[in-house]
């Protein structure tokens, strides 16, 4: 059984729908325990919660094996399940809400700048914000920004998931990303005002 690929093991389990061979499931899961354990530990930051989350992920995988179509590697499909469970956990428990330091990041510790962001929020659309993010940020900043603001992942979890080694982890990337975006939006705003001014003169 050890010679079979992951996908062959899943197919074997699917053939025996209702009572898949336990040895086959055991072999499949055993190959991925460390991967999911590492992911969950990086997400939660403590081993007990990580074990509970990983257990839920494998239970979900077991319940959903029938829906695996073999159109991707099993590990990619497993990632989807793990990712969804993490997003659900964040939604259920709002773990990112009370993280110390977030208030500093949201206001950037500078009331004037916060006012500027508030104004920017009124002016730019989500579509434009997407384009600005893509244009201004490097790969890590994009990933950190997306996971923190788009998925509500905590900064500590993002630091661990992306393997960031710098002292302040994801927090530093959020700050640098917002500085870059701030400059870009200021430039964009100045151009808009210039265009409006030129229009009046005509």
């Amino acid at each position, binding site marked *: *059984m050890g*010679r*079979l690929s992951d*996908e*062959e093991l899943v*197919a*074997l389990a699917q053939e025996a729908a209702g*009572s898949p*061979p*336990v*040895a086959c499931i*055991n072999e499949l899961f*055993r190959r991925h325990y*460390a*991967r999911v354990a*590492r992911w969950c*530990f*990086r*997400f*939660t930051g403590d*081993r*007990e*919660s*990580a074990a509970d*989350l*990983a*257990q*839920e992920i*494998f*239970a979900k995988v077991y319940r959903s094996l029938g829906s695996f179509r*073999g*159109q991707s*590697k099993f*590990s990619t499909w497993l*990632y*989807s399940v793990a*990712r969804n469970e993490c997003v*659900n*956990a964040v939604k259920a*428990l709002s773990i990112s809400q009370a993280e110390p330091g977030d*208030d500093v990041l*949201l*206001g950037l510790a500078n*009331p004037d700048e*916060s006012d500027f962001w*508030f104004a920017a*929020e009124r002016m730019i659309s*989500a579509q434009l*914000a*997407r384009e600005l*993010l*893509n244009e201004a940020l490097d790969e890590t900043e*994009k990933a950190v*920004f*997306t*996971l923190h*603001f*788009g998925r*509500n992942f905590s900064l500590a979890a993002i630091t661990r998931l*992306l393997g960031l080694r710098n002292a302040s982890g994801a927090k530093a990337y959020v700050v640098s990303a917002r500085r870059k975006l701030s400059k870009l939006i200021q430039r964009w705003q100045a151009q808009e005002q210039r265009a409006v001014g030129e229009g009046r003169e005509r």
Partner: protein
Amino acid sequence: MPDRALEDRELWRQALEPTAACPVPEELVRVSREVPHDSAATRAHVEGCVQCQTELALVKEFQSATTDPGEAAAVSWITAELERRFERILTASSAAPVAVLHKPVPWYRRFDRGRFRVAALTAAGLLILLGVGLNLRGVQEPELNSKSAGGAVVLRSEELIALAPIGNLKQPPAELRWQAAPGAAHYLVKVMEVDRTELWKSESTETSISLPAAIRKAIVPGKTLLWQVTAMSADRRTLGSSKTLSFRLPVRSDSSKD
């Protein structure tokens, strides 16, 4: 100020959440590795989508990451826990919410309040009475009848497991493989069309058998074939058969994998 901060955050949440154009991770990985004509639009989307690029980075991290020395002990502990909880994973009931970042509440604490306490105590009392009653009846445990009268081994349905080939294959299989069955002296294998018309059959004393060239030629893309293995005793009695497995070579258009 907090309200403004939240509104600010809302803008970025809207900008960064997946859109209808964002592919699922499985497709994302496939598109990132291939340049087929039919995925050009998806590829263009991914290149300009922060959310898709992040998703792709996470998939790669998930698939290829190695355990850091600082997390090795925790990962090893969690892995051991998962192995220990394997049975629980298989028997887990449907979609219970995950209590991440919270210590799980012991089951007995859930009954430690209000009307649950009364109901739990009543149920416990009834169970004790029922248990005592059953014990007093002196019912004997029935004998297990694990072997037939003649002493011949009969395999349970899961004891002879056909392993490969199964499902969609990348190339024609060279052999059929299965797990050894207790008491089997040799095995009969047969390959069939989907209507169970027999194409080929043979015997083996091993747990695999090579497919002859004539049968390999019959394995063409898009055609599904079936096969089954039967365990036989030394005196040629049937001990049990595996489930029938199917396999096929995908036609070119559906053969792509990430």
